[in-house]
């Protein structure tokens, strides 16, 4: 299927019974350009391997993302706007660095930094417990464990395979698909110029400030979270506990079983030393 034709048709044809209508043509056009830019930039970053392509890729990708972001509503007031974008940058830029970094340890560190950004964004939205839980569990336990395994399994710090990704075509497809997804999101979120503030996806009405401050953003946030957690969502939380337990048992038993195989030299698995 011809994707660009498909999208242009979506923008042009007014008779199609879609919520966007003809006025969205320019939005869709800008988005397409943005998607293409971002995809191209990422492709340069990932598939090509020279200094200039990487720098150019950073610029292109950043331009594409910013172009997409410009379609969104502005956060008011400007202080919030600034804070939000700082935190967003803290989340997104390390994430990008993580996927392009050639050294896995750096990838993990970038991921941890990105996690800090995400946790800050959660805090910024008033989800205090989740923000800190993300930090404790993700940054404190999961990523450290990743680092452990990385350091133990890859004592050299990086392997040859970290410097070459899959072929250029798959990388391009992946970049295009992923950017397209973001573009689709923005296209759905961005307000149509005609209808004031209405986005094509009909959002339910937001919760009122009073309602929020009574429950979700209450000063005793954690107490409220806990009371919901252990009443409405009790079954879910029990299931989560069972899941954790099963994972624990599974991991231990795997490692215990695997230990036996390591003792056997020439166990039939071809060890290819790629390092």
């Amino acid at each position: 299927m011809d994707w660009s034709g498909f999208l242009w048709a979506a923008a042009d044809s007014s008779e199609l019974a879609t919520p966007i209508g003809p006025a969205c043509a320019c939005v869709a056009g800008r988005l397409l350009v943005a998607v293409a830019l971002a995809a191209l930039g990422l492709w340069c970053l990932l598939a090509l391997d020279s200094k200039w392509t990487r720098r150019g890729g950073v610029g292109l990708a950043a331009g594409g993302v910013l172009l997409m972001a410009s379609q969104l509503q502005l956060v008011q007031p400007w202080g919030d706007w600034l804070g939000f974008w700082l935190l967003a940058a803290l989340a997104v830029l390390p994430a990008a660095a993580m996927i392009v970094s050639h050294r896995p340890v750096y990838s993990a560190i970038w991921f941890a930094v990105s996690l800090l950004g995400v946790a800050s964004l959660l805090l910024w939205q008033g989800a205090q417990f989740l923000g800190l839980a993300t930090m404790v569990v993700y940054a404190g336990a999961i990523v450290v464990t990743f680092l452990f395994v990385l350091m133990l399994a890859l004592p050299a710090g990086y392997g040859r395979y970290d410097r070459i990704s899959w072929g250029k075509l798959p990388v391009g497809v992946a970049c295009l698909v992923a950017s397209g997804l973001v573009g689709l999101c923005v296209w759905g979120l961005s307000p149509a110029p005609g209808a004031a503030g209405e986005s094509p996806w009909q959002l339910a009405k937001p919760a009122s400030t009073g309602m929020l401050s009574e429950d979700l953003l209450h000063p005793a946030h954690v107490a409220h979270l806990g009371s919901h957690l252990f009443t409405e969502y009790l079954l879910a939380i029990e299931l989560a506990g069972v899941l954790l337990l099963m994972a624990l048992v599974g991991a231990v038993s795997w490692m215990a079983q695997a230990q036996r195989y390591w003792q056997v030299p020439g166990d039939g698995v071809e060890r290819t030393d790629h390092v």
Partner: protein
Amino acid sequence: MSDTAILQNHLFVGAVLFALGLIGFLVRRNVIVMFLCVELMLQGVALSLVSWSRYHGDWGGQMLVIFIITVAACEAALGLALVWIMAQRGGSLDIAIWQTLRERDQAPYTDREVPEEDRSVEDWPQLTPAGVEPVHPREEDMYRSHV
């Protein structure tokens, strides 16, 4: 108005994180990095969920994020156990060595050449101003044999 804006912007950031994770998962070959990318995708989703939760004033989204954290922890435990076993048995973290699990009559994958290193972008350890470069074999630049 502002609520909608906050929601939109957070959803956008979440989508970008998700997309970056997706790209990383598809493109990278190091198993652990792929894993990290999956976690990044989860982060994107978690961010979106919390945004919706705040927008609707409903706890459901936050509960789902708690679930995501749980699942991530389980995934880390089991996934890393698997990765560790794979690394021990295969001697490498390259996902490509496990193409031996392909169907019998499929052609094997042949790796392409490693591109020539461009020394100008090389960020290997630099000499410190105070030190004199010790004489060391070339391989030491490539990797550390032991730690």
